[in-house]
């Protein structure tokens, strides 16, 4: 099988990630932060090392501000429900994933939250101007996906962060599709909350996620519980990470994520992005030359867009194309990709698009093979 569904989750994982998970289960099998015996302390050391690694990689001010979650969606829920439960207005982009849309919709239905939407356009200055126009004195947060999970286009996060900072409002970034393939730094990009999956571009196991807090804006916990500290006080501790982390963490997953982050660091974000774009380019040009095929964004460019390619074929449901590709040994994702807002923005047809997304493990030869399969499949469809 040629796996081109890496925007859903990367596969395969680097061997060092598999080894780290196994090693954690063998040698760090105690509950971190709960006891003083060697297995518990070994687990705590391993978890702390991942915090340090993530903080350093993403420019988070201190490892304490690195919060482990189950996935990017959980990170986003903690932030949005923490910041916006009492209402006001929130400003988002027009290409948000349902990880942002659904929590906001739920908050809006419950109370007085109003959602304002600004368009992301190819010109970064115009994008910033669009956001600037939609800001009001009641805006409580600016929330933006760094890269569209469907079309790969990006928002100018540093400029939007500067705008949010100048207005004194928190800047929340959904880095689900950009972490590990685009430069992303909380300090340089003025990001107050960075929400990330561990299992996509960071090559960690599924069931891992990160919430990185800038430390300027306090956040109430989404859930309370045991932290292994201050146990006689029924109030949740005020300090991070305990304030936002309750219950036993996913130590094997966190160890795998740590190995993934270090693997990405060793490969280099730029090198991974360049490789992924090289893999997508022949596919882009093949599809571009076919009749009835519609592409939605310019060819992917390293450092500018995420290597995600969506297409549709006039009169053919996207799921039918995915099924035919699957029969030919190619794994892709079709439909709306949990991002109906992005599909609406780009005007994709009923049934959505077929999405091709490579990873560092995709080979150029494999991509050329998919190119040939697509050509044969679609030229006379």
């Amino acid at each position, binding site marked *: 099988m040629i796996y081109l569904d890496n925007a859903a989750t990367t596969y395969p994982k680097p061997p060092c990630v598999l080894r780290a998970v196994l090693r954690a289960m063998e040698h760090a099998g105690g509950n971190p*932060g709960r006891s003083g015996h060697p297995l518990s302390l070994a687990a705590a050391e391993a978890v*702390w090392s991942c915090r*340090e690694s993530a903080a350093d990689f993403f420019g988070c001010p201190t490892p304490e501000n690195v919060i482990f979650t189950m996935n990017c969606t959980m990170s986003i829920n903690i932030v949005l429900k923490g910041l916006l439960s009492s209402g006001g207005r929130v400003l988002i982009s027009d290409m948000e994933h349902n990880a942002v849309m659904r929590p906001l919709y739920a908050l809006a239905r419950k109370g007085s939250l109003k959602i304002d939407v600004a368009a992301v356009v190819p010109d970064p200055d115009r994008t910033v101007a669009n956001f600037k126009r939609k800001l009001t004195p009641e805006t409580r947060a600016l929330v933006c996906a760094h890269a569209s999970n469907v079309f790969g286009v990006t928002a100018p996060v540093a400029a939007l962060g500067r705008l949010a900072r100048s207005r004194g409002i928190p800047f929340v970034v959904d880095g689900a599709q950009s972490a590990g393939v685009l430069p992303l730094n909380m300090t340089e990009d003025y990001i107050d909350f960075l929400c990330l999956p561990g299992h996509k571009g960071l090559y960690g196991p599924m069931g891992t996620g990160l919430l990185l807090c800038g430390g300027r804006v306090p956040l109430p916990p989404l859930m309370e519980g045991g*932290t292994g*500290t*201050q146990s*006689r006080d029924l109030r949740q501790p005020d300090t991070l*990470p305990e304030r936002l982390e309750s219950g036993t963490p996913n130590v094997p997953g966190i160890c795998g994520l740590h190995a993934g982050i270090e693997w990405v660091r060793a490969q280099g974000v730029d090198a991974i992005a360049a490789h992924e774009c090289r893999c997508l380019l022949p596919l882009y040009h093949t599809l571009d030359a076919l009749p009835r095929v519609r592409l939605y964004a310019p060819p992917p460019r390293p450092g500018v867009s995420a290597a995600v390619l969506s297409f549709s074929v006039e009169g053919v449901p996207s799921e039918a194309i995915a099924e035919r590709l699957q029969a030919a040994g190619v794994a892709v994702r079709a439909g709306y990709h949990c991002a109906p807002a992005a599909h609406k923005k780009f005007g994709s047809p009923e049934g959505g698009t077929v999405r091709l997304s490579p990873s560092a493990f995709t080979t150029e030869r494999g991509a050329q093979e998919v190119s040939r399969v697509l050509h044969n499949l679609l030229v006379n469809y």
Partner: protein
Amino acid sequence: MTNTLRLSVGSVGRALHGQRILRRNGYRSWVHRRTEPSREGCGYTLDVAVRSPDEQAAVLRLLAAAGITPSAPRESGWGG
């Protein structure tokens, strides 16, 4: 003479953070589960090997710079 400065730091994360900062600055330290009963409940201590009151002050300064403020530092040695 080396003495042990016992610092009650709350969570294991803060203890490990403190340990790594101190290690980078040439101090040896050990993380332990807190053994003395505490009003707060459970927590961790960082035992730091220090050779003088000056070193003790330096350790506390290094930790404070990282936002780690131990409750009730206790030492063995120096004036009983």
